[in-house]
């Protein structure tokens, strides 16, 4: 559904005339436009429509005999509201007295004390006395609702927020209320712990101390901490967060509601992986390999050695840049590589260099959809990605769109999606065949025959027809949410062309509320590309003077001895790159491996000569670009831990020591340089970006985006998906929990994935494999083991394995076909 048009109405609140958008709930309108606070407990606009359960917000509206719940009355023209009459005050005092009769009032030992809506409301609107002398309700307390959340049912005021969140926002359907009346309590449906990708949001939603964070319990009181706003860089969703900082330590992460980015939610990785900032496993001092082992060294020795090694390797240096790199670090790295060492062999895309023209076409400002577009579009096509793993918070946004705005959700993916049950139609294709699938869809929309293309994609031709019909009939505003894997691998350019053709068929260019939205492989992939951290592009996606090697070619060149040194900037190729075998060879052969890393992940541990400690995202300053083109700002929230130094400064220092000082005295100088040099960022400044970011594609300077070829492109016939012939097609995915930060966070470690082998019930029966059994997946003599995970929705003939895990990653296997058997 297209966005509702805002129409202002006039109403009177306590005698003052107030203008507010029609349809807005009175409690919101009063606060936002009338500066009148109507107290609430159960209501929060972001959970969805009001339920009017707590009755805290009763107000008088002229013409309506009974008092109304301010949270659930939409403002209308001419409405006359009173929130301060004796009747209203009596109702507020009554409700607060009722709420407090069973509340333990253990504020002095409650984590919520000091930042508690119940305290605030009791202070602001309560009568101050209780006449209740009966025994209060008792429950066992506190209990673990999950390894992450403690529940204290005595403190619970039964506002229903957490249950509604679980049922209507996260749609994990785990939290329920049991019993009734005053005996009601919150629990999980099956009595098992509440483990879900977004469970932590209920802690923040709870208006009392009934749901508390177990990692944060008793770590601080609100007056001990300071809040510091920044951006979470653990995935491309780039949610806006606020760090609770005490004595230069991050003790907690809270959401910093941003309708354009995260809609006020965080995933559990974003909420709890801050723990990895303060663990002993973190690298917080420079290290060098000495006698085969990495040992701490002084900064001087590390920098001097690195400068020497890099000078020596000169143009024979390659660089892999990981997604957590900021634009500033990216630009300084290109300075170090291109202008200092004379090498163009640097890449931030793991899937191989994409034709620059196509990259420009895909990133063209008029073709970019925004995150809120996902919520208001007529239809969203999720293509070759799994939002809950790849950019978790978008999963919630899509659910919201379907639930509240009638968005028609369509899915085309290899692996079954968590969103399938919310989708109007889901289609499966063979792993790696996104190109053929997109081409089939494009052909069908163009009125051509799609059957042979669908078959080449390993998809059911009827599915392609059904998706195309749905897309055609949905309405004009269509967003394609696509995964970078569609434009990775040997057929990447064809994948991009097929996608652009599809967008062209749907007329997505220059249409408000429609467009493409990529989920890239790395957090700041978009920014890194735009500042030229690519082998074939200069800053601002300009033509590269000399085209260098892409990631795979760097690996091959290292393995062949054509390159001798490699810089791994927040990148572990054994976790991030598609082929582990290649990178084992490459790193084994490289004489110099310089890593900037926070953790000793496999490649760093085994191969790095020099390791520089990487800043955590709470320590970093700089800018990143959200996949929907929003330039966001990281702000340093705590002191750098241990010996860690600013990485932008380190990169500048390295270049200076080698003889080409970039003259960057502060990080903001580098930011300013980027805003000058990227034509379509022109006029940006850190102030302008501020705390909420700014979408460059919506600014006038976007007109300076380099011209790109226009669809339709001629497509050649895609290769047919491999026929299993008794084997299984190998598909891979990166779990939301596959990250060194999750592994290092004590609270989250239980979620860090071990390999699991996802197969269909049909294949499992054929191969005699039972759920949970140990199985081996093998190809060409390589094998990995994992636990069999039979998924009813998995297509026959395909097996899915995880990548980016330290042991037994899918990257160890070469596809497209593998053999699966019981270990």
């Amino acid at each position, binding site marked *: 559904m297209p966005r509702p048009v805002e129409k202002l109405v006039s109403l009177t609140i306590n005698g003052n005339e107030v203008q507010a958008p029609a349809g807005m709930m009175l409690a919101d309108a009063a606060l936002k436009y009338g500066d009148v606070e109507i107290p609430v407990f159960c209501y929060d606009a972001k959970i969805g429509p009001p339920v009017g359960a707590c009755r805290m917000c009763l107000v008088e509206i002229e013409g309506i005999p009974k008092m109304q719940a301010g949270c659930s009355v939409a403002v209308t023209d001419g409405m006359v509201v009173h929130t301060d009459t004796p009747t209203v005050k009596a109702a507020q005092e*009554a409700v607060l007295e009722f*709420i407090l009769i069973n509340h333990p009032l253990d504020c002095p030992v409650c984590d919520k004390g000091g930042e508690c809506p119940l305290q605030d409301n009791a202070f602001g609107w309560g009568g101050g006395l209780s006449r209740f002398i009966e025994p209060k309700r008792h429950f066992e307390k506190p209990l673990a609702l999950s390894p992450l959340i403690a529940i204290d049912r005595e403190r619970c005021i039964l506002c229903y927020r957490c249950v509604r969140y679980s049922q209507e926002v996260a749609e994990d359907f785990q939290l329920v209320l049991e019993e*009734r009346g*005053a*005996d009601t309590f919150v629990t999980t449906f099956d009595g098992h712990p509440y483990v879900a990708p977004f469970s932590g949001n209920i802690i923040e939603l709870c208006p009392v101390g009934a749901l508390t964070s177990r990692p944060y319990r008793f770590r601080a009181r609100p007056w001990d901490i300071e809040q510091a706003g920044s951006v979470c860089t653990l995935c491309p969703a780039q949610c806006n967060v606020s760090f609770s900082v005490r004595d230069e330590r991050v003790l907690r992460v809270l959401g910093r509601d941003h309708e354009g980015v995260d809609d006020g939610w965080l995933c559990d990785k974003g909420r709890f992986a801050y723990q990895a900032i303060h663990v002993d496993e973190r690298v917080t001092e420079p290290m060098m390999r000495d006698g085969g082992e990495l040992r701490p060294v002084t900064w001087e020795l590390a920098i001097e050695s690195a400068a020497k090694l890099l000078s020596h390797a000169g143009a024979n240096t390659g660089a892999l840049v990981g997604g957590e790199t900021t634009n500033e670090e990216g630009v300084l790295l290109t300075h170090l590589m291109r202008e200092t060492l004379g090498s163009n062999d640097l890449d931030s895309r793991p899937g191989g260099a994409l034709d620059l023209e196509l990259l420009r076409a895909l990133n063209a400002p008029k073709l970019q959809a925004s995150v809120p577009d996902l919520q208001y579009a007529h239809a969203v096509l999720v293509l070759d990605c799994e939002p809950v793993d790849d950019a978790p918070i978008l999963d919630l946004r899509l659910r919201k769109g379907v639930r509240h705005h009638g968005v028609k959700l369509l899915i085309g993916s290899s692996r079954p999606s968590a969103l399938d049950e919310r989708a109007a139609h889901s289609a499966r294709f063979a792993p790696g065949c996104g190109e053929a699938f997109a081409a089939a869809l494009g052909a069908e929309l163009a009125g051509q025959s799609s059957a042979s293309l669908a078959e080449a994609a390993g998809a059911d031709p009827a599915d392609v027809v059904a998706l195309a019909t749905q897309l055609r009939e949905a309405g004009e505003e269509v967003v394609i949410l696509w995964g970078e894997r569609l434009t990775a691998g040997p057929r990447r350019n064809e994948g991009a062309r097929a996608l652009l053709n599809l967008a062209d068929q749907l007329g997505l260019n220059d249409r408000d509320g429609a467009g493409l939205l990529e989920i890239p492989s790395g957090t700041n992939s978009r920014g890194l590309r735009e500042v030229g951290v690519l082998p074939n592009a200069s800053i601002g996606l300009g033509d590269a003077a000399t085209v260098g090697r892409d990631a795979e070619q760097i690996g091959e060149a290292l393995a062949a001895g054509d390159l001798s040194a490699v810089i791994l900037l927040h990148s572990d190729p054994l976790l991030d790159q598609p082929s582990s075998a290649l990178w084992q060879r490459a790193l084994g052969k490289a004489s110099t491996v310089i890593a900037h890393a926070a953790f000793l992940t496999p490649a760093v541990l085994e191969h790095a000569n020099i390791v520089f400690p990487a800043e955590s995202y709470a320590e970093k300053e700089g800018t990143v670009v959200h996949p929907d083109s929003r330039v966001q700002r990281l702000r340093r929230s705590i002191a750098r831990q241990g010996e860690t130094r600013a990485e932008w400064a380190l990169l500048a220092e390295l270049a200076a020591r080698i003889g080409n000082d970039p003259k960057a005295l502060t990080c903001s100088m580098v930011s300013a340089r980027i805003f000058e040099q990227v034509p379509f960022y022109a006029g940006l400044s850190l102030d302008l970006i501020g705390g909420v970011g700014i979408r460059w594609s919506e600014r006038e300077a976007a007109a300076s985006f380099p011209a790109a070829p226009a669809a339709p492109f001629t497509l050649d016939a895609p290769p047919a998906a491999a026929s299993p012939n008794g084997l299984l097609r190998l598909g891979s995915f990166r779990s939301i929990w596959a990250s060194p930060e999750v592994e290092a966070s004590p609270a989250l470690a239980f979620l860090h994935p071990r390999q699991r082998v996802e197969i269909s019930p049909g294949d499992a029966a054929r191969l005699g494999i039972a759920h949970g059994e140990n199985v081996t997946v093998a190809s060409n003599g390589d094998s990995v083991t994992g636990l069999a995970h039979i998924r009813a929705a998995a297509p026959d003939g395909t097996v899915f394995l995880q990548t980016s895990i330290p042991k037994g990653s899918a990257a160890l296997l070469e596809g497209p076909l593998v053999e699966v058997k019981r270990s």
Partner: protein
Amino acid sequence: MTDTLLFTNIDEPGLNTIDVYLARGGYEQLGRALKMEREDLITELSGSGLRGRGGAGFPMGRKASFIPKGDMQKYVVCNADESEPGTFKDRELIQKNPHQLIEGLIIAAYAIDATINYIYIRGEYDQQADILDAAIAEARERGFLGEKILGSDFSVQLELSRGAGAYICGEETGLLDSLEGKRGNPRLKPPFPANEGLFNGPTLINNVETLSAIPSIIKLGAEGYAAIGVKDSSGTKLVSISGNVERPGNYEIELGTSSRELIYDLAGGPVDGRAIKCWFPGGSSTPVLTADDLDIGYDYDSIAAAGSMLGSGAIIVVDETQSVVELAYKLAKFYSHESCGKCTPCREGTAWTFHMVERIKEGTATPMDLDIMAAVQEQIIGHCLCVLGDAMAMPIGSLIAKFRDEFEAEIETNRNERERKLAEEFAAAEVEIEGISA
């Protein structure tokens, strides 16, 4: 008193089977209704003045006229979750004359063009559910339900759904949630079910008795039906008279009949010539009236004018031998047990009230507690999400207001009794406490 409408032939053996029902002219009115334009049918229902018999007394035809026109799926839901203490009229209607209800329901469904319809029956009505099931099957077999019934263009389905024993599922939106397979909790209104009800579709919810009255309206015509009863309370009403009377039971009466006539003439009044202490005019959730109110007419407006409600038409008579504290205790226990817990005033207020009455019984209350108890009732009334909270607060509030002396006397008696027992216990245990002696 006119002839009976709802209870015509009610005690005829086999009336619950379709053959007998047909032989008594059953489903004739459905045939007539199907020949009418929908608009005219709704006008007819409105013109009859029939008010909802479930408790709220909202004009039935007006409710039907709120149902939007259009292609969306619409529903008629029959509320057969008869749970109000003292009310047992729907049970008899379902048990003895289920086809009358089904006929009325199909007419209502036709009026609003609802092709999918439900009867939600309380879990405890096991036998009645079986009877209804059988009757629905018969109606389906004879073509009164199904595709293009009686040669019209109207196709209609009817399903029976059984509750699981919650009073709150008699509240119309709680019923809808339960019917949808959710926890039975009331919903926020608006949106009203007429706009957004079952599965978000426009829904007409009516009580068993309301729907059962429809065939009579078609038969008599709006004017004929409206001629029965008094102004704004037309037609006949089933009253379930229970409590301290000689002849408890269901009686069909013309609205406006004097309450004294109902309690004394029909039900025989209290035994042994005892005096009436108070009576609930419309189920246990209505404010009590006293012997002084016996001469008012039994119709919606007169009862309202006396400060109570006609409710479900369940008259519970309490004679002078009964304790008001015991009465309050039973009410508070019932409603706190049945509170769904969704909204604060009802959840906490009913439980608090129950604890206070419990203390009166235990002998640990003081007259001051009565003030608190009365205040708590005030704090509940008008503040809740649905009417359950009020359903306890109104009768208890009225009991305290009207029988405060009795409450105070009983508080005193129970305190003395408790202290005497304590003193005995202390004496037995040879504990000496100043000021307390056996």
